[in-house]
């Protein structure tokens, strides 16, 4: 199990080995890699249920995936006002959302924390927005120090 499955706010500042080699200053200052991981559930001989996140092989509706973006500051200068905008593809449904992150449920027109958003149904009924309603996600990080890297992830289900 890799460390992207160590969730929770406590993981926000997990110190890790210098996985990112220092590169020449001519390289792009910001390295960005998008990835998708597939939940694979296995049951070991003792009956223990094990969940692994693997490279997606076969993906069919109902499968659970992690959408993620890995970033690394390759430059010698700090990066400021780091804003990641991530539209949610229509074919997947967000399974869970960090209550602190900004999301949109209207295609990016308005942004708020999920708990502050309401959905107006076709019949006029209002209800609290659910993770599955999220259309866009936005992370804002004030600063990334030189050499620092991290991941931004969210779990989805293929519709």
């Amino acid at each position, binding site marked *: 199990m890799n*460390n*992207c499955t*160590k*969730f*929770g706010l406590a*993981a*926000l*500042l*997990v110190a*890790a080995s*210098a*996985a990112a080699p220092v590169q020449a200053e001519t390289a*792009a*200052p*910001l390295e*960005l*890699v*998008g990835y*998708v991981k597939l939940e694979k559930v296995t049951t070991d001989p003792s009956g223990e249920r094990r*969940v692994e996140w693997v490279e*997606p*092989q*076969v*993906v*069919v*509706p*109902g499968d659970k995936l992690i*959408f993620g*973006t890995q*970033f690394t500051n390759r*430059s010698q*200068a*700090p*990066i*400021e*006002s*780091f*804003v*990641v*905008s*991530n539209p949610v*593809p229509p*074919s*997947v449904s967000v*399974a*869970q959302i*960090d209550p602190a992150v900004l999301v949109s449920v209207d295609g990016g027109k308005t942004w708020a924390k999920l708990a502050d958003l309401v959905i107006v149904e076709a019949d006029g009924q209002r209800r609290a927005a659910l*993770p599955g309603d999220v259309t866009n996600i936005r992370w804002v*990080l004030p600063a990334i*120090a030189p*050499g*620092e*890297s*991290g991941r*931004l*992830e*969210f*779990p989805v*289900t293929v*519709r």
Partner: protein
Amino acid sequence: MTRSFTFAALAAGTAMVALQSVPALAEGTSAGTVITNTATVDYRVGGIDQTEVVASDTFEVDRKINLIVTRISGPAVSVSPGQTGAVIAFDVTNLSNDTIDLALAVIQSSADNFDVDNVRIFRDDGNGSFDGADTLITSLDEVVEDASVRVFVVSDVSLSSTNGEDAELVLSATAHSGGSPGTLGAVLVSTPGPDDPQGVETVLADGAGEDDVDFDGVYNAPGSFTVFAASLNVAKTSRVIDDPVNSTTNPKAIPGATVEYCIAVSNAAGAATASNVEVTDVLPGDLTFVVGSIRINGTLDGSGNCTGGDPGGSIAVRTITAPLSDVAAGETRTAAFRAAIN
């Protein structure tokens, strides 16, 4: 340094699973759909906006094959011996995320009382009931995602079948590739080996039906015909009711005596009502029919003799014909007539 910005509580596995459970119907995203997750980053270095950076990852949704066959008719369709065109209706539903063809077959049980004959499958013309406008088929062509097609298993029932016998069968649907319209595609199997991230693989995800297993691309649904027949028993008795010597007191079968013949038609309990019942009897030689003596729709008295009934029936040459009213389950009707011994 590595930082992990992730959503809280992914580790709370069970709660998340509940949130993520997907409906059983509607397999949703079509096979071949390309899903791309794109993140766009805006940032500053030294207070200056930098060129935005985009990262994405793409995969293609594979083909998830799921199908179900549901019997619409009751569990035991009532038929009569000799009935033609007995019908069991089924709905065949494509729950896959792709258009598929479905091969259909009827498999008769060997553990039942009899097999039906002339078994055919018809595709409903859209009105939901079997009629002359339906199409004889062996497969369903190009069934789109989530579409359900009504089909009819139609067969004939042997005249020799008897009340309470049953003929069991399954309608078996096998998923085939959609292929080109009008042609049954190849049987679908789960794609072996590793995935091609940009290709469409096949995953069989169907459930177990009658005598088939999970994930085999086949779904069987059972149905049966149960024979509901009349079960008639006919008994003929005779008694001497009068002779020229003893009159009606202990009469004997001597020349000149009158004999009453009693024919009782009984239908067993639980059987179908018998209609158009007609009793015929050829009068033996040495007997002379007593004109006007035929009584129909009578009953048996406690001694097993015919009693009651109405005038009716006819005689032609020496054959007596006595039509009876419908004989319901558990009911007995009689025909009686008299003749004199020559």
